């Protein structure tokens, strides 16, 4: 029982990452009708926002320490971050320690700007082009973005730890009445889950309760009619693209402490998030979220030993297997609408 609870927790956590990426992907698809293969790259750029801020905060000057030597036998040069000079060693270290949460603030404007530039500069010209062209151009863009990151930051993963206050784990099982040590869960993953829930809730509330959101939803349902009403839907769609980019970016920022960011993490998530979106139903926001959590949880269950012993290799294929079963039983995914991307 505790093993199952543990895997549900893991699943919710994986699911939140899938859901956040899929949410933006389906939002862009639903509003703009664009199949965005560069969405994974936005997630990756988000994670590198955290890395960048960390790098900025740790900008250092070098102080020579005569007592120690470096690998060539010369006196060791020790890096001293300017933050320590500015705010003193304790406060400076604390600011650096909190670089990931601070990166949330840093990433929002950056990601919105990236999103808006992408939309205005490139995607806009592809609204009326075939999906095949959209795939080609966004795939090309994804490669370019990740190669730029690779040229700047290298190919290796870059450790980006969470603040000390959130490292480590706590005994979640005791809260639920299990034995001590039965369910140990890292703080940061709980933070991630809560954060994801907050963002998802925020996006839904925004679309549900603001006029802006209502127009966008109407546009998702029937773009031409809304256009006929004389509302400048294009400008709103640009903003939506920025928003979707910000959601993907925030998902990336917060993901950085879970897995050290590397330049190809976007591609790793891209295929999965497409599967999530399609399983949820193209263009359906609740579908994307539901499918994200569903696949996350099923993936976690499939990695349990007890299950792998019966079905070797099931964890390798579970997501795809579930996708096939769902698409064969429900033609348009969990909550897809008729006629979307079926021609």
């Amino acid at each position: 029982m505790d093993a199952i609870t543990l895997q549900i927790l893991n699943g919710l956590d994986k699911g939140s990452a899938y859901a956040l990426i899929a949410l933006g992907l389906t939002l862009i698809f639903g509003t703009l009708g664009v199949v965005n293969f560069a969405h994974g790259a936005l997630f990756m750029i988000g994670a590198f926002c955290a890395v960048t801020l960390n790098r900025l905060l740790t900008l250092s000057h070098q102080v020579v320490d005569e007592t120690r030597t470096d690998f060539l036998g010369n006196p060791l040069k020790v890096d001293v971050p300017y933050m320590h000079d500015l705010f003193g060693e304790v406060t400076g270290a604390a600011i650096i320690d909190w670089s990931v949460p601070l990166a949330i603030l840093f990433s929002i404007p950056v990601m919105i700007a990236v999103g808006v530039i992408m939309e205005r500069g490139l995607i806009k010209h592809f609204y009326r082009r075939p999906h095949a062209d959209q795939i080609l151009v966004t795939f090309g863009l994804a490669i370019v973005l990740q190669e730029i990151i690779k040229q700047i930051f290298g190919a290796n993963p870059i450790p980006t730890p969470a603040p000390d206050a959130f490292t480590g784990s706590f005994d979640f099982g005791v809260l639920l009445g299990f034995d001590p040590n039965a369910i140990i869960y890292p703080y940061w993953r709980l933070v991630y889950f809560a954060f994801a829930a907050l963002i998802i809730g925020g996006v839904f509330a925004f679309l549900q309760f603001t006029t802006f959101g209502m127009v966008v939803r109407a546009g998702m349902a029937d773009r031409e009619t809304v256009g006929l009403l004389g509302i400048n839907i294009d400008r709103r769609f640009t903003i939506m693209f920025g928003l979707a980019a910000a959601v993907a970016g925030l998902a990336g920022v917060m993901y950085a402490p879970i897995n050290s960011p590397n330049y190809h993490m976007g591609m790793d998530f891209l295929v999965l998030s497409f599967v999530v979106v399609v399983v949820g139903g193209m263009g359906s926001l609740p579908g994307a979220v539901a499918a994200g959590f569903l696949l996350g949880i099923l993936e976690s269950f499939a990695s349990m030993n007890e299950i792998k012993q019966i079905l070797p290799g099931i964890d390798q294929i579970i997501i795809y297997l579930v996708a096939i079963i769902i698409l064969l039983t429900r033609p348009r995914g969990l909550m897809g609408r008729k006629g979307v991307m079926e021609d």
Partner: protein
Amino acid sequence: MSKTTLTRRGVLRTGAVAGAGVALPTIFTASSARAFTNAPTGGSVTLGFNVPQTGPYADEGADELRAYELAVEHLNGGGDGGMLNTFSSKALDGTGIMGKKVEYVTGDTQTKSDAARASAKSMIEKDGAIMITGGSSSGVAIAVQGLCQEAGVIFMAGLTHSNDTTGKDKKANGFRHFFNAYMSGAALAPVLAKMYGDDRKAYHLTADYTWGWTQEESIKAATEALGWETVNAVKTPLAQTDFSSYIAPVLNSGADVLVLNHYGGNMVNSLTNAVQFGLREKQVNGKNFEIVVPLYSRLMARGAGENVKGIFGSTNWHWSLQDAGSKAFVQSFGTKYGFPPSQAAHTCYVQTLLYADAVQRAGSFDPCAVGEALAGFEFDGLGNGPTLYRAEDHQCFKDVLVVKGKENPTSEFDLLEVVEVTPRAQVEYAPDHPMFAGGSLGACNPGA
């Protein structure tokens, strides 16, 4: 088109000429066939450096390439000569190889067997490379080794740790300087037993592909021989990025040691996840819970950041070694590039020197002659102490380093400290050891 000369560089056997006669016009007359593929003609000789330049191992590949460039510089008499000065064999004199200037071509393996072979083929067919070297994974090494055997050139493996490279997939034209999973186990197990006791219960997480399996098998055998019990061994998909669902159940399994048979990005993520789940702060069976990473790479350890502190593993070489060879290499590499070399860089540099030396001693670029010169070659001064290139399987036998993550690193390169240098005798095994059985070197292939 005033003058038409005709040479043969191709790999064309008489049988093929007869068979292909229909397809080939008569201007192709058989001239004096040379004895081997891509025999160097002019004043230079071309080596092929096949390293990952894209994909997750690109940084490791870049470091390998730096080492190759350095080796070429030294062979051609440039720089400070590096390990040429400490190498026990004095055949090389800084005038290239057999008086021919060393040139090189590079290619991208993409860490994919297919792409690596395409890239190697292009270097052999287009650029006339006489030797191929490099690589950052065992799958690629074995695939390229197979290709070189067929094409009739020498393959000097780069970073490849699987037992199979010099085990069931060994080839007469292929040579490995790097250590292997068996050696990791043999070196690591006694240290682990000493540090953590001999009644530990281990839980393995293993990357689900051939290298992972051979390492799991090796470590299991070595630790069980010293009294450890293996509670469970779970395979994880290669493409996995979040290992939480594999790590979470470890605490309740009764195990008190977690062995991560992962490399590269897998290792960074699984180790990071394991530390996040607080495994190292727990007590199980009245002992501190411990994590072991049998194959360490400094480049990868960087990706895991703080999490590597105090974690044991093994490595082929480390820049902090204080023997003359290592110091010379670190000196020239560090001076040229500004940071210390990785173990991948070291093995690639050494392989290049060993190849050049073998050619010089054999007095020929003929792969069979070079192979003979390498087989059974005893040498020293290249950073690992006295070393033997065993004739039976073309595996180098040398000391193995047991390392652990450093608690107080002085720089971003200073992540590991050497705990023990396991002597060569302790990691040796018979060529027909069951973990290496099933293949044969076959005959050397000069290509024509």
